[in-house]
């Protein structure tokens, strides 16, 4: 009996310690002073490039809006995933419904750490697992550009997620596994500059891997199948393999890739489709050397076979 009491006591202590450790390990971690000091003054012209590379409008513009109206970042798109429905919020300059009251440090903590101004975790549907690789100075430039965009009132609806994904605090543990500011693809010393720039654009602001890399069961990207294509998180269909492996784009030249990002035409006369349409329209706004850099990097990425299961052809 005494033994049982001891065991129960030990289990209780362990449980409390475990919960305490989990609580500590899951705590949101904001940026340190040293990183914040690298933000600098910010420049709206340079920030526009980052804005387009990041494709902010793809999720935060009003769904279905066109042209100039896409700069009204009111949110409201519904991303229906196996975890539940994510709704990108209003990130316009409205001080109440948007992020008009945010400081540049707030934006940096959101994008590089996935932490809100009030100190809560954001869900990684907001692709900070990629943005974490961005240079702080680019965040400051982006902040300056966002300041030039209109304030639009209106709150987007909340996410509706299933258990246990609806517990924000748990994301702290997820971040310990997947949040890193280090590049994914190691490149040898002396790698030419376009490849390095391309790596930065693809792995960081462009967040290409968020759709083009398959995920494990907790929703982290599988680095061993980097950019190998994946089953689409939303609805039916797949996101293509953009490595040079079988099923990928090995037969595209760098010029073909750059041209696709500019015009939306593939080398075999097909056109861009699905969620990539908005991405391609943003990429078309980039300077030509950025599209060339992305192409150069994609050619340097290790080839993988398709990261999604082969299609079962239905019987006729």
């Amino acid at each position, binding site marked *: 009996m005494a033994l049982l009491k001891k065991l129960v006591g030990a289990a209780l202590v362990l449980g409390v310690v475990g919960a305490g450790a989990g609580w500590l390990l899951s705590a949101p971690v904001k940026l340190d002073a040293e990183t914040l000091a690298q933000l600098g003054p910010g420049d709206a012209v340079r920030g526009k490039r980052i804005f387009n590379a990041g494709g902010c409008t793809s999720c935060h513009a009003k769904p279905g809006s066109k042209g100039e109206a896409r700069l009204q970042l009111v949110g409201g798109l519904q991303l229906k995933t196996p975890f539940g429905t994510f709704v990108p919020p209003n990130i316009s300059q409205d001080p109440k419904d948007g992020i008009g009251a945010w400081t540049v440090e707030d934006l940096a903590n959101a994008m590089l750490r996935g932490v809100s101004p009030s100190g809560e975790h954001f869900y990684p549907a907001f692709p900070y697992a990629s943005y974490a690789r961005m240079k702080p100075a680019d965040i400051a430039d982006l902040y300056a550009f966002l300041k030039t965009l209109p304030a639009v009132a209106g709150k987007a609806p909340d996410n509706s997620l299933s258990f246990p994904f609806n517990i924000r605090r748990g994301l702290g543990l997820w971040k310990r596994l997947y949040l890193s500011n280090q590049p994914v693809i190691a490149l040898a010393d002396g790698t030419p500059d376009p490849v390095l720039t391309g790596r930065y654009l693809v792995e960081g602001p462009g967040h290409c891997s968020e759709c083009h890399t398959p995920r494990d069961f907790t929703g982290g990207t599988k680095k061993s199948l980097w950019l190998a294509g994946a089953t*689409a998180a939303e609805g039916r269909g*797949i996101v293509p393999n953009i490595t040079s492996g079988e099923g990928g784009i090995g037969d595209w030249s760098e010029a073909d890739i750059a041209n696709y990002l500019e015009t939306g*035409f593939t080398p075999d006369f097909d056109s*861009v*489709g699905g969620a990539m349409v908005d991405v*391609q329209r943003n990429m078309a706004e980039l300077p030509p050397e950025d599209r060339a850099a992305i192409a150069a990097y994609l050619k340097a990425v290790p080839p993988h076979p398709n990261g999604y299961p082969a*299609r079962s052809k*239905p019987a006729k």
Partner: protein
Amino acid sequence: MRKLVIAISMLSLAASAAFADPILDRQGLMKERGKLVGGLSKIAKGEADFDAAAVLAALQALQVNAEKVDVDALFPAGSDSGDTTASPKIWQDMAGFKTTNEKYVADVKATVAAAPADVDALKAQIGTLGSDCGTCHQTYRVKKG
């Protein structure tokens, strides 16, 4: 007797046209369309010489191709299953799909009517048509492996 044979063979021809696989038919039209646009965009990119008569001929072929798309015949109910990348959204929003198609047809006709005199004009027009391709494929096509 001969007349009867001809009549029967014509009937069966008509029947086979009516019962042809709409999925294969629409895929054929899309492939032809892609080839035509591909040839034109080569000229727009400066990879092939600009010949006004040849460009006009290609654009006219594009118009013939566009006008062949009879949405009701090519996208009948039930043709969302099978070996197709057509999105179920076509049938959920048939009116929107038709509007998107009609905009493309109108843009092709306008391009033929204002046939481009030089590469820059062609480039702008291919830009418009390419944007139509993307707009439709954004919503109404599902990429499959």
